[in-house]
């Protein structure tokens, strides 16, 4: 029967460290997108206005 063996601190550091990097990058990209959403909508609006103008 396999004995209960806890993960070494280095294992926790690797796991939590990697998860932190991944979550940080994801949240940063979503936060940036939510901040710049207006500009993206503006592009779409401008292009549609140009089409109407033409």
């Amino acid at each position: 029967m396999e004995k209960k063996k806890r993960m070494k601190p280095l294992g926790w550091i690797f796991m939590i460290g990697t998860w932190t990097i991944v979550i940080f990058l994801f949240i940063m990209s979503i936060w940036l997108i939510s901040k710049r959403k207006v500009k993206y909508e503006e592009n779409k609006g401008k292009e549609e206005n140009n089409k109407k103008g033409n």
Partner: protein
Amino acid sequence: MNEREHWKTRIGLILAMAGNAVGLGNFLRFPVEAAKHGGGVFMIPYIVSLFLIGIPLMWLEWTIGRYAGIRGHGSPPAFLSLGWKHPIAKYLGVIGLFTPTVIAIYYVYIESWTLAYGFLSLTNSLPIVDHTEIQDINAYLAPFQTFHKNFLGDTDGPLMYPSRYAYLAFIITLCLNMYILSRGIVKGIERVAKIAMPLLFLFAIVLVVRVFTLKNPVNPDIDIIKGLKYIWEPDFSKISDPSIWLAAAGQIFFTLSLGTGAIQVYASYLREKDDIALSGFATATSNELAEVILGGSIAIPAAIIFFGVVNAQEIAQSGAFRLGFITLPAVFQNLPFGNIFGALWFFLLFFAGITSSLALCQPAISFLEDELKLSRKESSLILGIIIFFSSHLVIFFKGAIEEMDFWAGTFGLVFFATIETMVFMWIFGGEKVWEELHKGADIRVPRIFFYILKYVSPILLLTILVTWFWKYFSKIGETASWNIFLTRGFLIYLFVFMCAVVGIVWKRRKG
């Protein structure tokens, strides 16, 4: 020039791009690779590769796609022709058309297994074995193994005779893919991505919570910590092993769906001033979230909790299909409400699969639409017929999936990515790419990525290519049976046929 469609919303675009990237590999291949290559220490080359290959190439492919799209082209032969004004460029681009189409031929069939297994699990039609019998892993898994063999019609000979469930599921999955594709970018792909991706994340979170609360039915001391320990505890003796670096670079490549041509084709439906720098980055981070956190916390930890480290190691070594279609059902079917968790697992894989297969089919659809001027419905029908007949090779001939996966899903991707990086960074001009990337950009990409794209990524890609060449090509003739040669013949025929069509189209255009 036909008016090309555009993505309706940015979130729809990012979800579709993330759907392209998040595939079966995120949940089956990544944990196996991490566990096999030194656990936590695998994450060092993995993160390094993400920044040296993954994210830079993602930006390059988005840039190529948008650049070609605003010029009315959305297919890989046209991409390379725009980047390099040489007659051979269009034929090099055929690799970007050939690769995703071949992957789609076997991917749709595998995807259909997940749909069938989802319903079989939901209706309690998968085997149930008393969980106190987990002494002998092979005996315990035998009913599941037999079930899977019968499902695929696996025989001792070179042929397979699939069950009616497998064949019906394949037909349904193929029709569903073609129906969605025929609806177009906004009403088809974007709408599906907006439904499938949130559901995929929801199902994955539910399964992670369930796996984290699992305990070994015989020895309650074995819990999630044991599973996480196996994946994450670093084995530093392996860090100097070049094969780990190669495996990590390969994993980054597959997980982000680089070199399939799909990213460029999706990006070709962007407007000229739509941001690609931030959207590309967000796509990569969404994929990493799904892979590293969710993908790494379901299959392997569950297998370890239930079967112990030694058995789980053997399962991991025997491949992703055994893990996904034999081991995981064996775990879930014996839990309270196990049929529901099993169904969630397979529907999660189905959503991951369908969002990827739609992207894999899109390069061929765009080629038929943009270069042959066919309608969306005609293009979907033609591709559907091609995939239907070609898939019979993988349905009936043993080893065809593996053979196609090597040529298209492994070698083809890296080969095409190497070509496009060389063409755009060295012939078309790195500075022009950089300028194009920043048109309408919501973020300024650090300049270091320019040098990475121009010098580091091509060297790394060439290294991967040469090493694989060295490792696999000497073995090509060793174990090949007639059905493998038949598959190779089909691949050669398909490639030559695509080259001929591209040649005729370009000749007519010139004329």
